[in-house]
């Protein structure tokens, strides 16, 4: 029989509770991205106000909050997707490995190569599975055997290879929703980004496809820094090490209310606003 002392048993209980999130962030984790006093404007409307947060390397950081609180807008500032919408303005800074991605001399294309994105609805190109994944590497001048290797490895890393290896030249649009989303992940990682932003990547998927994407994220976390926006709080609780809760201030600007270890946010949040939101007593 397994004998344990009382304090060992308590330790096991405590660890079991915190170990539920598949990731622990320790103090010595390197900061990959640093957001400081970030304001984001659509014209005169301030959509994000004063967000400051450090995103640790090779970890999953989740952003939760009610609709319209600026989660996706914040995520898009992380690879300057906001630039693509007219009349937008950014104040404050977002750094990647210490370099402000909003500096004038920064190449925005390079930023987006280093910081890839997966969207809410799977959006494969109307091309073959192979060409979807090969698209980015080809732009970077990769071809021949090397390209084939990258495509295979990316599909393997996206946990899709076994399902598509015999039909690489079929259209990516013929795949199921969950497979299409994993194809989009494969396409994203084919250019070897350092950070992957995911904007509600499972909201259009069924539970099984959702679990596959979550497993995939947990595996990818060893190589990539992942930031995910999700409405599914259980998903944030399952996959992330840190969770950020955003809310709207009276001016309807998105603010960061609480940012901390996921276990703490979901079992014992520090702010009442967070508690009200995650227990569903809000709005």
């Amino acid at each position, binding site marked *: 029989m397994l004998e344990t002392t009382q304090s060992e048993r308590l330790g096991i209980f405590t660890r079991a509770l915190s170990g539920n999130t598949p990731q622990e962030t320790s103090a010595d984790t390197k900061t990959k991205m640093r957001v400081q006093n970030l304001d984001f404007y659509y014209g005169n409307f301030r959509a994000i106000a004063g967000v400051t947060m450090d995103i640790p390397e090779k970890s999953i950081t989740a952003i939760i909050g009610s609709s319209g609180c600026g989660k996706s807008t914040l995520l898009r500032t992380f690879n300057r997707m906001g630039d693509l919408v007219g009349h937008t303005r950014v104040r404050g800074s977002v750094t990647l490995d210490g370099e402000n991605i909003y500096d004038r001399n920064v190449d925005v294309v390079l930023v987006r190569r280093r910081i890839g994105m997966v969207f809410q609805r799977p959006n494969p190109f109307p091309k073959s599975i192979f060409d979807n994944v090969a698209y980015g590497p080809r732009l970077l001048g990769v071809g021949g055997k090397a390209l084939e290797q990258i495509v295979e490895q990316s599909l393997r890393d996206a946990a899709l290879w076994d399902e598509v290896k015999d039909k690489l030249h079929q259209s990516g649009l013929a795949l199921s929703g969950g497979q299409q989303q994993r194809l989009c992940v494969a396409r994203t990682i084919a250019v070897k980004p350092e950070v992957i932003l995911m904007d509600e990547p499972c909201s259009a998927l069924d539970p099984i496809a959702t679990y596959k994407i979550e497993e995939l994220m947990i595996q990818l976390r060893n190589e990539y820094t992942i930031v995910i926006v999700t409405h599914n*709080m259980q998903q944030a609780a399952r996959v992330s090490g840190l969770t950020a809760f955003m809310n709207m201030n009276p001016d309807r600007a998105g603010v960061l209310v609480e940012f901390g270890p996921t276990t703490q946010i979901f079992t014992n949040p520090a702010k009442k606003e*967070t508690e009200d939101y995650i227990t569903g*007593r809000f709005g």
Partner: protein
Amino acid sequence: MPRDTFEKQVNDLKKTLLALGALTTQTISDGTEALKTRDRVTAQSLIKQDIEINRMRYDIEERAYRLIATQQPLASDLREIMSILLIAIELERIADHSKNLAEIVIRMGDEPLLKPLIDIPRMAQLCESMLGQALDAVARNDSELARAVCNRDEEIDQLYKQIFRELMTYVMEDSRTVTRALNLLFAAHNLERIGDRVTNIGERVIYAATGRLEELNVENHQMVE
């Protein structure tokens, strides 16, 4: 409120828990009274009542699982439901200790008591009063009260040690008293365990109220065990 139904279900669950708590508290005094008066009828009915207490515990357990599975409670909701679940288990075990007292009564038959009972009823009274306070702490989600209750476990442990020493002197003087001494020691031991389980309930209240997992009275534990 967006989660009225859920809140009502949690409140109802807590009410059932407190009802189980009231029944359990009663078993301590019934068991001790049966021991004092050698009342085998009360002892029998206590043994029977344990079936109902076990049923209530499973009912709470089942409802807690259902809430967890269907409502995915988080933060204070999660802590409260988990605490209710764990406290229900502690209460059921406390009632088992009371049932053990009843079984001692039946086992002893007409054999006279080794000595008049003084400290055992005192222990029982303490247990009952601690459990009552612990249940108040549950009802009010009051971590300070829970902590105060747990601190009283020390008194129970001291009484237990005193009883232990006293009974040992009887056995050392006359080894023929060993069975009767062990019956009383077993009774005291069950009450001592009740004190520990009330401490566990206090720990659950503190967790539900504050989110802190703490082990209280570690030293007392190690001294007694």
